[in-house]
């Protein structure tokens, strides 16, 4: 069993990394490296990413999830990430928050998808208390019946990551790059993207959201800000950019 480092009032330590405009692939590589090679707890916050990018889950099939022709024409990058879950298109309006934890640091949460998801929803409920009708609905964060935050996880023997892409704002035209997924939550009721999602910006500012999230985390952890997490040059991440050839081949295969 890993030794549990404790700080203020016996709470486990957590390093907060605040970034702005970091490319999403770089963020994903950092997160997977920390999950697999660090023994500390981390909260990574990236306030917007530099350019519109499509990010699929580990088993995502581009032909089923993405409109490949316009994506190729407009040169939108498509990434397959190391965590599970669905497909998002992220840009400067997306705020990313990721918790990377030793399972022993959150000992009352079993290291399985649903307990971790429940734990995260209790944390974010504090963030939105008195501000909006926040709920965890199936595996999404919603205001009412509209999704504003998508979640994904990766769970190892002794650690886990729960990361979220929050739609603080988005470009409606970007949603047209995504197909309606075959696997969708029941509450979606076959709504297309623009009827299904909503932006967070109507409820609170970017800085308020980030500060309130750090405050909520501090009720579970003894938080301290870190400028840059360590990197491990020996680690090979699994998240990667799909090549044009792969996308073209996927499109060809779907016509057969």
């Amino acid at each position: 069993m890993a030794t549990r480092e404790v700080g203020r009032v016996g709470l486990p330590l957590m390093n907060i990394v605040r970034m702005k405009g970091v490319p999403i692939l770089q963020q994903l590589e950092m997160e997977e490296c920390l999950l697999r090679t660090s023994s500390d707890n981390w909260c990574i916050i990236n306030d917007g990413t530099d350019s519109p990018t499509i990010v699929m889950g580990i088993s995502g099939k581009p032909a089923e999830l993405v409109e490949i022709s316009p994506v190729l024409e407009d040169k939108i990058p498509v990434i397959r990430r190391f965590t599970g879950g669905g497909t998002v298109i992220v840009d400067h309006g997306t705020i990313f928050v990721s918790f990377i934890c030793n399972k022993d640091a959150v000992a009352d949460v079993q290291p399985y998808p649903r307990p971790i998801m429940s734990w995260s929803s209790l944390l974010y409920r504090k963030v939105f208390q008195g501000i909006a009708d926040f709920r965890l609905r199936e595996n999404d964060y919603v205001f009412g019946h509209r999704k504003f935050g998508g979640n994904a996880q990766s769970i190892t023997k002794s650690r886990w990551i729960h990361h979220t892409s929050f739609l603080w704002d988005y470009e409606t035209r970007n949603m047209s790059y995504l197909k309606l997924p075959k696997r969708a939550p029941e509450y979606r009721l076959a709504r297309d993207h623009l009827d299904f999602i909503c932006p967070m910006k109507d409820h609170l500012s970017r800085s308020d959201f980030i500060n309130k999230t750090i405050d909520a985390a501090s009720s579970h952890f003894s938080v301290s800000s870190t400028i840059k997490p360590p990197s491990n040059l020996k680690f090979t991440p699994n998240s990667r950019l799909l090549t044009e050839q792969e996308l073209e081949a996927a499109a060809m295969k779907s016509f057969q």
Partner: protein
Amino acid sequence: MAMASRLWASKAASYLKISTFNRAFASVVKDLKYADSHEWAKIDGNSATIGITDHAQDHLGDVVYVELPEVGAAVTQGSSFGAVESVKATSDINSPVSGKVVEVNQELGSSPGLVNGSPYEDGWIMKVELSNADEVKSLMDSDQYSKFCEEEDSH
């Protein structure tokens, strides 16, 4: 039906601030050996068939994808060799034994749900040629594993 019950439980748990509950007693199979990371091994001479337990599949939820190892790859006791995707998560699968992968269950490519529906039989994941048969002694038998699961779920 089971899925609807799990969804309700998850929602209720999140409002009531309690840990999501699961079935009281997951099934175990006598004569299999078990790891504390919830994989099973069926030992047959110098070979082992490996899968995840009923406890694991129940806690993970509906499996939608299995990342299989390559045939010929080396596996090490206690280390990750693949992953399953369920809900929104990828979860490592760890090998209960060390050796070389000699076969993988190709059926899981088109039918990942076999891991849920038949975790000890049709949902097997890989077959391994053992490099150290003594390692099997460190695994739990079915009674020990049942107690281990009860203790884990009671926390």
